[in-house]
């Protein structure tokens, strides 16, 4: 096959389903897309611009364009306010996220692997539990969970955030689907013939073949933990243990209670908490995109 052929074919593949569109419908298509693009991006643009302004300029200048550049002053204010409590919140969020998600990934990948690769008795019931738990609204769980954690003496400790995060039914489901796709049963059988035990087979074959799936599960779990709000709001009391999202909410409220205005800090704080998560998701797009489409189409 010559290179021109190859190029022509690739060009053809790249073409959308509907070719020969009229000029009018092309214009309409592009108008729609550009309008929505602006709608998606403009609010984030506003946040970025606002983060560079001094508190006074926030109220007096056009929100969509820059005024005097105060980003570095604002960032310094953010990290020094109240003895650097914001840094503490960032660290908490990171620790809760990493600890909770690492544990979750290990447990859920192992469980999903077993559900996919073994035909033990009761497997159907366990799968049924997983699917049924998708239908339990979070609302039902929060109040009794609070009472349970009170009894376990983990309310107002990091454990109330970290440990429950381990047991994600959705992650088990994803892990099962990934294992079915990634691990040929013959390979495990061959390992057994060669004398490998089941645990060794999991660590040397199963877990390795599921690296991509595990990465997806970790990523989705970490993002979920970073963004979570209701859990920390209910289970954490002392501000030294708060997460970033909870801290930002408390700053938003301060404006109401006292006459201090923390608007500038909330805006810079919002962007500082936004950047790592957007950067993470952009760099690992391949993983979470496959994860959410897999989870929704199967």
């Amino acid at each position, binding site marked *: 096959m010559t290179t021109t052929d190859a190029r022509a074919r690739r060009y053809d593949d790249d073409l959308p389903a509907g070719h020969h569109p009229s000029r009018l419908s092309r214009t309409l298509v592009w108008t729609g897309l550009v309008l929505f693009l602006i709608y998606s991006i403009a609010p984030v643009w506003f946040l970025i611009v606002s983060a560079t302004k001094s508190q006074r300029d926030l109220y007096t200048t056009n929100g969509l364009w820059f005024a005097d550049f105060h980003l570095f002053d604002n960032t310094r204010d953010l990290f020094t306010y109240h003895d650097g409590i914001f840094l503490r919140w960032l660290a908490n969020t990171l620790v809760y996220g990493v600890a909770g998600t690492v544990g979750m990934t290990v447990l859920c990948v192992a469980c999903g692997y077993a559900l996919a690769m073994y035909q033990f008795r009761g*497997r159907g019931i366990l799968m049924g539990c997983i699917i049924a738990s998708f239908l339990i609204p979070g609302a039902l769980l929060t109040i009794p969970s609070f009472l349970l954690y009170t009894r376990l003496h983990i309310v107002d400790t990091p454990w109330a955030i970290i440990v429950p995060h381990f047991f994600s039914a959705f992650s088990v489901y994803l892990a099962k689907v990934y294992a079915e796709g990634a691990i040929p049963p013959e390979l495990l059988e061959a390992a057994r013939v060669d004398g490998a035990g089941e645990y060794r087979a999991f660590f040397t074959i199963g877990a390795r073949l599921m690296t991509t799936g595990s990465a997806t599960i970790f990523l989705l779990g970490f993002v979920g933990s970073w963004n979570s709000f209701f859990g920390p709001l209910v289970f954490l009391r002392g501000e030294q243990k708060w997460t970033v999202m909870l801290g930002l909410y408390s700053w938003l409220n301060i404006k109401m209670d006292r006459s201090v205005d923390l608007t500038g800090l909330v805006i810079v704080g919002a962007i500082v908490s936004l950047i790592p998560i957007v950067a993470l998701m952009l760099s690992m797009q391949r993983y979470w995109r496959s994860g959410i489409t897999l989870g929704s189409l199967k």
Partner: protein
Amino acid sequence: MSLDLKQNPLAPPAAEQSGAVDAPGRRWRRTVELKGASFTVPFFAGFVVFTVVPVIMALSKSLYSSKSSGLGFGEKTVSFSGFENFDRALHDVKFWGSLWRVALFAIVVIPLIQATSLALALLLDSVRRRVAGKLRIAMLVPYMSPGIVATLIWIYLYSPAVGPLTPFFKLFGINANFYSSELIWVSVGNLMAWGSIGFNMLIVYGALQAVPRDIFDSARVDGASEWRIAWSIKVPYVRRSLVLVSVLGIIGTLQIFSEPLLFRSMTPETVTKDFTPIMTIYNQAFAVGDFNYAAALSIVLALVVGLVSATFYKLTNRAPR
């Protein structure tokens, strides 16, 4: 070895070597399955503690009431009260008011969000894939933003003091107060749309990519216009995905909490403390301190959510196509 595997991949090696006899092979197989099952033990142990136990606790808590003897002084006594809490919940005007408020909101906002997501997915499907890929990333930025940050952004955009939206609408002679009781649902709805259209569009677009391309060619040969192809072929194909994202939307919207809570910081007169069902439950549990009643309300809400999503699913999936 590979030959053996092809013949009977499930036969244990012991049985293969010894010839016939099933018993040791079966025992060996059972050990393997038991070891396999042991992988699920850690997860399901935690699952029982953190999911099953809370559900049971909710059910049992809701059957008890705690009453303080006398004038609110003295010890609170907890006693079995049967369905008293549920009876109270069924007649709780504020709770049902908040539920209707949210349901009405869902009825308006979810179809709008789904229609926009579908339209957008179809638009993306009609440009070159590589361009579509780049546009899609940009359109997913709202989805990547944490919900609280998204809410904060819009709170400030709506704010008459800081945001550019109020002066923008003034240019057209419209005096819009986004925090007023008339506009608050428009404001929250727009915020939800901003955060969820990208995700829904991604799901629908994914389903569109799975449609076999030669169908379009045959339709074109038969003289169908692009609009006709979109409406009669593409839309029916993505129906299941649309139903799925709608169900997720219903479940999420009925349980909406953090968005109105943040709006409450700005406008406590409009967004009352029992504005949505979850806010009512939260308020009952942590402000009033009546966990038993809050548990009963949670169960009622869970039933409503389950019933609504099941009905919706049934209705939309009844007639194929």
